[in-house]
């Protein structure tokens, strides 16, 4: 590794890391064995993310572009306009790609074919990390402002958090946590009570 920045998992559980200084992307098996996945088309790569087809996208902070790699590692330019120091990348559920432009304080949105438009601007001091919550709101961390902003799907922003941050960088939601005890307990209780009622009814008939 050489100054690793963005991380992303593919659907098979392999971890990819963007090496900012070496201009490479490394791939690690779940056991931690690494190989070079890509070494072309990269210029200070930062954020990484996968689309639903398994293609990997890398933000080129130094090259103001986004490179797209097939699962086999074949690269092509996905977008090269509307980008200024791109950092975090994330897809929405409809397949649009969002890029945080750290150098000009904007978030750019791209269709799946690479057509860009401005999604958010104003009040973003070096936006760095991007993540969607399950309700479709986009969260944006600001490295220079030490905040996390929240945007509705329509692009209306509000402050989510501004404490405990020091160079707020990449962000991620933990959506993989299994339903905790109260939920399981509630479901279990419901099932048991329903079962009791059912048995009681059967006994009577």
């Amino acid at each position, binding site marked *: 590794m050489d100054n690793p920045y963005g991380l992303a998992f593919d659907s098979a559980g392999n971890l990819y890391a963007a090496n900012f200084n070496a201009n490479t992307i490394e791939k690690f098996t779940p056991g931690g064995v690494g190989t070079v996945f890509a070494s072309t088309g990269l210029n200070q790569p930062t954020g990484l993310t996968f689309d639903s087809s398994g293609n990997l996208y890398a933000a080129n902070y130094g090259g103001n572009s986004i490179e797209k790699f097939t699962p086999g590692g074949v690269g092509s330019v996905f977008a090269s306009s509307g980008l200024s120091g791109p950092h975090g990348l994330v897809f929405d559920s409809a397949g649009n790609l969002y890029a945080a432009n750290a150098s000009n304080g904007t978030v750019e949105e791209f269709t799946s074919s690479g057509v860009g438009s401005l999604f958010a601007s104003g009040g973003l001091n070096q936006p760095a990390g991007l993540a969607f919550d399950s309700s479709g709101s986009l969260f944006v961390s600001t490295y220079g402002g030490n905040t996390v902003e929240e945007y509705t799907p329509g692009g209306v922003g509000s402050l989510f958090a501004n404490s405990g*941050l020091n160079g707020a960088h990449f962000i991620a939601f933990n959506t993989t946590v299994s339903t905790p005890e109260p939920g399981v307990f509630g479901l279990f209780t419901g099932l048991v009570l329903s079962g009791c009622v059912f048995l009681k009814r059967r006994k009577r008939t």
Partner: protein
Amino acid sequence: MKSRSFSFLIFGSLLATSASVHAETLFVSNPLNNTIVKFTPGGVGSVFASAGLSTPTGIAFDSTGNLYSANDGNNTILKFTPSGIGSVFASVRIG
């Protein structure tokens, strides 16, 4: 009786649904003070991890809820269990 059993089921399902929504926690890496903090859906923050971190940058979760952290400062990737216990996942330079 039938409607009662249905209402129990719905009650249980609602509890399960609300609980899983509340489990959505946002994690942020802080490269300038070597921490990873987490925020509740209401925006209340707390430190998740600080040990072993050296200018932490990228973060990502695997499918079982472990958090991986890229460290710009010492060329490592650390793995943290959901409870915040860290270990080195990768550190060898290959590219």
